[in-house]
């Protein structure tokens, strides 16, 4: 339904950090998701600190980590560079890289740290004690300071979680947990599956809940999401990190895949049964809860009118797709992610044999980042290959009357396919 159930402002509308909030810590390109809990320590980048000392401050603020792990807001002027008026050289023809330019030893630096010097002050000390600094070109000086900042910076930024941030975090920290899905691939999936408010979406994922949470974010608490899960129970750790308002969870259902065949055959019994005698009251209540959840998910599924299907798991995608596609209405998108290409080739082939799909496409994306600085603009890494593959398509009415091989062939002929307009 499109009617908003709650008018409470979600965490995403708070501008200041509150106790209990799920946040993401950031330093440079390193992220970590934590929950702000009173007096609870968090470890980030080899440092212990107390996130709850940031409560009351604004999201997006950057903090210095003071002794004891206390977070102190960093003043904007503290982040200015210190090389503006310095002299600089023209090239490095006379600069000897003998490791002896820096007069401060590691012990000296430790002493300075112990004296409570801030990171900018330490960096200034390093600059002052470098015999070659003033001979470096201006660009080399900037690069030197940037490098030192990265090493000595003792700050952390606290961000509101979002699909974008969490996807980058997981990809950087624990790619194995998300089947090595790169964040631009997740972006493609969410758009190709036409995830939007008010629809009914099926999700099967083993990506720690990142994909599920991303789908939920794009649905905004409207419509319903049914998590199809393998094994004993759905994994949703990643969903918590999004910090969704409570009412979002009203839209989230789960269905164990071990009952898919029964549901498709119409033999799944979700009716209330008399509990066996002698069971403890607590256990009865739990079983009844479980039965209710199963029944409500089954009710959403058995109409076979879901609006979208998103699959991203370590399981072989073929049987998952062929099983779950049966729950979709005709003319609805489906998207399957796999770390590997070959299983998706198999999916493609099997779907062709089965019929009932159009616009099948097997794609991957390459992501290239750029350094953009005056006279120093150039590409950085090209992220390709290790980001996974996507098979996408649209369902159509399955034709029972004609044999499958009379379907209009979709394997493209020699003519070039229309790719992004070219």
């Amino acid at each position, binding site marked *: 339904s499109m009617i908003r159930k709650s008018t409470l402002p979600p965490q995403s509308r708070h501008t200041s950090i509150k106790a209990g909030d799920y946040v993401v810590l950031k330093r440079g390109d390193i992220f970590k998701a934590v929950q702000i809990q009173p007096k609870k320590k968090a470890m980030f980048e080899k440092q212990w600190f107390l996130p709850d000392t940031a409560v009351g401050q604004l*999201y997006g603020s950057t903090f210095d980590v003071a002794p004891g792990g206390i977070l102190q807001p960093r003043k904007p002027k503290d982040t200015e560079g210190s090389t503006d008026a310095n002299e600089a050289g023209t090239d490095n023809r006379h600069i000897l890289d003998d490791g002896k330019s820096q007069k401060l030893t590691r012990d000296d630096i430790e002493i300075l740290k112990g004296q409570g010097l801030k990171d900018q002050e330490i960096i200034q000390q390093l600059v002052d004690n470098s015999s070659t600094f003033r001979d470096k070109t201006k660009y080399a000086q900037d690069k030197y300071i940037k490098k030192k900042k990265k090493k000595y910076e003792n700050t952390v930024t606290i961000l509101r979680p979002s699909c974008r941030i969490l996807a980058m975090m997981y990809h950087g920290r624990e790619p194995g947990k998300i089947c090595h899905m790169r964040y631009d691939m997740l972006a493609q999936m969410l758009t190709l599956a036409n995830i*939007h408010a008010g629809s009914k979406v099926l999700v099967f994922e083993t990506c720690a809940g990142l994909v599920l949470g991303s789908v939920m974010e794009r649905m905004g608490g409207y419509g319903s999401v049914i998590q199809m899960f393998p094994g004993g129970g759905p994994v949703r750790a990643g969903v918590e990190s999004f910090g969704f308002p409570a009412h979002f969870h009203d839209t989230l259902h789960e269905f164990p895949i071990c009952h898919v065949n029964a549901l498709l055959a119409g033999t799944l019994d979700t009716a209330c049964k008399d509990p066996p005698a002698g069971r403890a009251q607590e256990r009865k209540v739990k079983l009844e809860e479980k039965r209710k959840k199963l029944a409500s998910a089954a009710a959403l599924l058995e109409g076979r009118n879901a609006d979208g299907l998103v699959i991203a798991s370590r399981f072989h995608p073929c049987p998952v797709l062929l099983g779950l596609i049966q729950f979709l*209405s005709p003319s609805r998108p489906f998207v399957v992610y796999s770390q590997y290409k070959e299983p998706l080739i198999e999916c493609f082939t099997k779907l062709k044999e089965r019929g009932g799909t159009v616009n099948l496409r097997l794609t991957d*994306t390459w992501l290239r980042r750029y350094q*953009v600085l005056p006279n120093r*603009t150039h590409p950085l890494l090209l992220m390709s290959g290790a980001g996974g593959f996507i098979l996408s398509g649209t369902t*159509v*009415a399955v034709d029972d009357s004609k044999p499958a091989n009379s379907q209009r062939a979709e394997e493209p002929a020699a003519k070039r*396919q229309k790719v992004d307009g070219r």
Partner: protein
Amino acid sequence: MSFVEYSDLIQDGDVAIVYLGPESMMPVKVKQGAQTQTRYGVIRHSSDLIGRRYGSKVTCSKGGWVYVLHMTPELWTVNLPHRTQILYTTDIATITMMLELKPGAVVCESGTGSGSLSHAILRSIAPSGHLHTVEFHQQRAEKAEEEFKEHRVDRLVTVRNQDVCKDGFGVTGVADAVFLDIPSPWEAVRHAKAAMKRQGGRVCSFSPCIEQVQKTCEALVDQGFEELSTLEVLLRVHDVRTVYLPLPDFGPDETAPQTSVALKTTTLPREMPGHTGYLTFATKPRT
């Protein structure tokens, strides 16, 4: 039908997609009494479309058939009438995630162009968000407004015919995200900042040329934007094919039965994906 909400049955007034074959689709405005010519024959809207389920197979007058698909922004992007160069789904998907678009978001966009990105934004921010889109070309602005109305999304969007570099977006302090696809985005950065909420938000500028990117980054830094990131996303489409690899004939050999092996694999197009534009993202901190 709506661009922002699914429906099951084809109705009078819908804009649907007629699927004729791979890489062969056309948009159709469904209308009582109307007809659409296809290479498989005529489709009569009243009898063949209206009341049928989306996704159905429709037989045309010559006996051939087509499928009728429910509109999505992605299908619209590859079927819309071009009035300008448009953004394609690969970039649109990246922009949607990196600008953190979701239901309820308020977005400012310029230029509107042919409305490819606009429709995708509307899909992502419905039902509670709003799009303020600015187009300096009068006819294009009018055409866009017409289309939004026809596509039943006009309640979610405001089109303004003005120059964003001079007059901004027409709103201040309301946007969660701003998108720029104009020749001189650096001239609009201060307007982007003004349009955005005090508490902050995300901005994106799309430019084909690196010189534009450099100037825009400079302007973003000057205006106090943070977390600058310039990237490009390239799509590769893998064509699934069966290829036949001949086996060598080394002479009589009982154990080698065949003359060739069939292999199911993928091939890539002759020309690798080209360049559309650079995407520069940044965050506006709280001001």
